[in-house]
């Protein structure tokens, strides 16, 4: 399989830090679709939208956004990133993404996971304490639904059984279901047991931090009888590509710091990640995909060497990078980074084969 480069957005509705301008939700929605179009034109393989249920994000229903993107594109794969499966209904999730698959001619994918926020749990009447059980159960149901129609599924603590249930429409493509893993070993093991593709999410820290979960994933898959060839690994990391190394960092930092506030608490309050901390993450051993074209190529190659990935998804624009800069980075990623990475990895795999 050819190496894939993707982008992911959360559709932030936050102010431009230079002008103070705040996009309206409808403006942001149009911008998000523009990102999908530009990504396809630039030669990017995958476009992802993450699910969030908050005023500062436009995409509580990624399948809707992706459906609109499907009508404006023709080849780019369309994925959620992530679908918060634990607080959703597996039948509904399947129906939504199967519909997307029909609308897009087989380009729909799901990354199932918890995501980085927890608002959806109280919103849909779930207890966050049940997170692990909810996820296991609903993933099980979703896979059963995808495997066979009509479907009989025994049910669980949180979801009633399905008995000879007709769940439609059926997708034209495979409707890949990835599992987003943020480092929890049990989650990696479970993904391996199921033989599902794994989307490793690396937020901050050393690039090698997921080696143990990745190894557990492969071990569990082998133990469950899944062939190594059937497995896929992607990395999902924040990033921004610029024409210069310093310029890329300067553009991304203030937005990333703002976006990270809620995930970076000190004394119970959001705290801006200090610039030296950000710069450390941008160095070779750090996880962030930020910098010049060459730096991004090199870092994706490092990820490839460490994890044997066949897909790299750059979460771009976190914290609300203005559209102009966002589109420039998409262009550079698609036209300058992606061809070199694909060529380099293809030649290495030829040598290996």
């Amino acid at each position: 399989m050819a190496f894939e480069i993707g982008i992911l957005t959360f559709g932030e509705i936050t102010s431009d830090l230079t002008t103070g301008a705040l996009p309206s939700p409808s403006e942001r929605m149009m911008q998000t679709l523009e990102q999908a179009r530009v990504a396809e034109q630039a030669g990017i393989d995958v476009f992802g939208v993450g699910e969030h249920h908050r005023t500062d994000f436009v995409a509580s229903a990624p399948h809707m956004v992706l459906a609109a993107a499907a009508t404006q594109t023709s080849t780019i794969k369309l994925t959620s990133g992530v679908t918060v499966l634990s607080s959703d209904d597996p039948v509904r999730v399947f129906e939504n993404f199967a519909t997307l698959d029909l609308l897009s001619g087989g380009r729909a994918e799901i990354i199932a996971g918890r995501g980085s926020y927890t608002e959806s749990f109280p919103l849909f009447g779930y207890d966050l304490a049940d997170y692990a059980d909810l996820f296991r159960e609903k993933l099980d149901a979703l896979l059963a639904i995808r495997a066979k129609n009509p479907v009989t599924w025994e049910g669980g603590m949180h979801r009633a059984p399905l008995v000879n249930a007709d769940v439609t429409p059926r997708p034209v493509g495979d409707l890949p279901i990835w599992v987003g893993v943020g480092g929890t070993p049990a989650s990696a093991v479970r993904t391996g047991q199921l033989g599902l593709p794994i989307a490793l999410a690396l937020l901050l820290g050393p690039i090698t931090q997921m080696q143990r979960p990745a190894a557990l994933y492969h071990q569990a898959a082998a133990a469950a009888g899944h062939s190594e060839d059937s497995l896929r690994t992607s990395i999902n990391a924040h990033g921004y590509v610029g024409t210069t190394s310093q310029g890329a960092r300067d553009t991304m930092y203030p937005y990333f710091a703002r976006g990270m506030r809620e995930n970076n608490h000190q004394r119970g309050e959001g705290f801006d990640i200090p610039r030296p901390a950000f710069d450390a993450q941008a160095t070779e051993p750090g996880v962030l995909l930020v910098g010049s074209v060459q730096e991004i190529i090199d870092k994706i190659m490092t990820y490839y060497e460490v994890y044997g990935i066949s897909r790299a998804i750059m979460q771009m624009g976190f914290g609300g990078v203005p559209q102009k800069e966002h589109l420039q980075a998409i262009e550079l990623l698609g036209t300058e980074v992606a061809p070199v990475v694909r060529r380099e990895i293809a030649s290495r795999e030829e040598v290996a084969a």
Partner: protein
Amino acid sequence: MTRPLTVVIVNGSPTERSKTMGLAGLVTTSLGNKLDIQTSSVDVYRLGSGFTGAITREDVSPDVEEDLRRVETADVLIAATPVYRATYPGMFKHLFDLVDQYALANKPVILVATGGSDRHALVIEHALRPLFGFFQAATAPVGFYANSGDFDGTLVLNNEVYSRIEIGVGDILPQLTALADAAETASVNAL
């Protein structure tokens, strides 16, 4: 009248390119972004026989005497050490065994430690803090710890460590600013 603050790192690491100094460097960078500072260090493992052979202060060589003076007259002391055999290395303690009992009284001291895992993190509270409690130093409330997994070489890759440093340095900033604004120099007082 403002003057640069002298910051002295007492480095308890035996290694040349040390994680401990990598972490201490983040502290001095943070301080340097907020204040005018002059930083130097005293590497306890490189002070030689004029230090290791000294049983009392009278025994130390002239250059070691100078280093000890630098520690005693610093405006801000950074006590930085790896954990070795459950605590700071003996060499690190040996330096403080030679420091005058009251030289560090009310002196701002920042505690920095590194260890093989987070199991050693309380070395800051259980080993370093009591030492400076004895000296009646003005030890900063937040100490800084990182484990070897937080580093690539000597570069800290754990974002939380940076944030903690910002918070911890921020806590003592008013005190340090007041110190910098004081007309008299600490070194004059000490002489």
